């Protein structure tokens, strides 16, 4: 009757369901195998390309560059990376580099003295509506306002180069003063007087000669803020001044004018005995 009919329909539905499941499973398996085949094909192509490249290199053909389009994407990427790294290295060496930001450009100026890297300073510029400084980490005693008033709107390259000159000169003056304090502290009497820009240095020092030490006092003024050598030097002998010490003072004054402070000290400290 009705029940047996229903039972029959039920079993038919079951069967249909089961068959459907089986079919789906088969399809899944097929799809995954097909994917595997694709992967293996790609691998095979890559390996083939590698082998080709090897063979070409071995045979010494010089058209490798023109084959760039044929070689694998990995090699192109490598080349691009090397080029970018080279650019970064150039930026690092020249000291000024810039990066585009959402609203303008961010510049970084690195300072250095003869191969020793000193501090880096940053400038965040906006380019619209006009070029203006958004944020920066330039020390307050560098005349940034003056420099930007003169060059920022008209010639940005000049602005950066003048600013970099100021920063580098300041960093070098500071380095010289620091070196003097660190390396020649036993030749200094009292403390080294300096100001924020390190463009006025005053100190007393002594020069050993024939078992005695002779005291001098020096005052260095750097009126040119872009220069790391002083424009004005006054060296005087503070003790009993014999004629020859006046000559020494003049000689030291010349040295300080011509070469870096710590180098000048090196020169006359080591050559002290020979001179006198």
């Amino acid at each position, binding site marked *: 009757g009705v029940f047996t009919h229903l039972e029959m329909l039920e079993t038919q539905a079951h069967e249909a369901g089961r068959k459907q499941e089986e079919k789906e499973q088969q399809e899944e398996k097929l799809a995954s195998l097909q994917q595997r085949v694709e992967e293996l094909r790609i691998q095979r192509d890559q390996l083939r390309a590698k082998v080709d490249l090897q063979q070409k290199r071995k045979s010494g053909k010089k058209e490798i560059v023109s084959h760039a389009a044929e070689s694998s994407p990995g090699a192109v990427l490598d080349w691009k990376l090397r080029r970018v790294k080279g650019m970064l290295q150039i*930026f690092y060496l020249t000291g000024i580099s810039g*990066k585009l930001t959402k609203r303008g450009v961010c510049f970084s100026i690195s300072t250095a003295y003869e191969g020793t890297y000193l501090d880096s300073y940053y400038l965040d510029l906006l380019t619209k509506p006009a070029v203006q400084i958004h944020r920066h980490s330039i*020390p307050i005693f560098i005349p940034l306002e003056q420099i930007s008033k003169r060059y920022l709107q008209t010639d940005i390259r000049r602005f950066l180069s003048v600013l970099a000159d100021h920063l580098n000169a300041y960093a070098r003056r500071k380095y010289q003063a620091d070196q003097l304090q660190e390396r020649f502290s036993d030749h200094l009497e009292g403390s080294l007087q300096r*100001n924020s820009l390190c463009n006025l240095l005053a100190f007393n020092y002594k020069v050993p000669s024939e078992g005695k030490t002779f005291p001098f006092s020096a005052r260095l003024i750097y009126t040119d803020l872009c220069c790391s050598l002083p424009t004005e030097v006054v060296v005087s002998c503070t003790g009993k001044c014999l004629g020859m010490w006046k000559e020494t003072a003049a000689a030291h004054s010349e040295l300080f004018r011509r070469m870096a402070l710590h180098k000048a000290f090196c020169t006359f400290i080591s050559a002290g005995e020979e001179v006198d």
Partner: protein
Amino acid sequence: MDETVAEYIRRTVLKIPRDEIKSMLQKWGFLSEAQLQTINFHQMKDNVSQEVVHLCEENSADIKQAAVLDIIYNHIYSSKRMWSVYRMQKTGEEPEIFDLQSFKKKFKRRLLSVLENVTINFREYEDNAIWIRVAWGTPYTKPNQYKPSYVVYHSQTPYVFISASVLKSNLPLLCQALVVASSYHDIHEMELRSHSLNSLKDIVFKRYSQNFQTYCPRPIQDRSGEPEIADLRITQENRSEKERIQRVTREIFGDGPQPKLEFAQYKLETMFKSDPKMEVLAKKEPFRCQVKFSSPHLLESLRSLAPAGMADAPLSPLLTCITQKARNNFRIKEKRSSFPESFVSP
């Protein structure tokens, strides 16, 4: 030696924590090493200070030398005082040669020409900071050594840090002397105040950590906040949101430590915005209200708000502009149609 000087030295030594007394006296340099050896620093501070006063008597200390000890104490414990920042202005482009001796001379001359009864002391420190201590008197009384003003000035900068004494009437005179001595022509107070002198310096000298986008090869700091959860059954549902918050916070605050400020104060002079039916303040006057954020370290706590989930990132620009605008006291007026954000008065 004067009684008042002896008392002043005694009280100054009493302020110093016991373990620091010896090193501070050594820095002072007024008592010789031999004399310092005779003091027993392990007894009660009262007795230590008495012994110090005795030795100072032997060396006939005067008030100027005692004042130097006071400067040394305040230099080390500068966070006990509240410092304000002043900015000086100059007109032309004058040469930047700063001569310390001429600065000191001009400053002294200016003050002494107006007020004879002042004690002025200078002390220079390694970081080019010039500390000035001024004790004020009146034309009829001697200077009050217990309420001096302190000024910290870095040469060739337009900023001066002042911790005024309670006697505020002398402030204009002090400012005038500073302006004359440093060859500027005007000075005004900035809206920046804190107990941490170094943090104030960091803010105005732009020494705090800012996040600049550069190509410079700097080592990328590995900031691994939470330990890696090893259990694979736990998944982070909002990992991308967390990363976004970290990135935005880093962009705003940078990587390094923040300057230490204790408060940020906002005086609101804006209209109260409410449901028109509620009819609060029908007079349409600005709703005067003051919001003050206080914290032992305000900027660090602001930095940790978004990562801790307590605020949205990015934070309101009113909070994040504190270091860049170099102020922690704001007056907020009504929005004007031309500006997209609230107008913050200068």
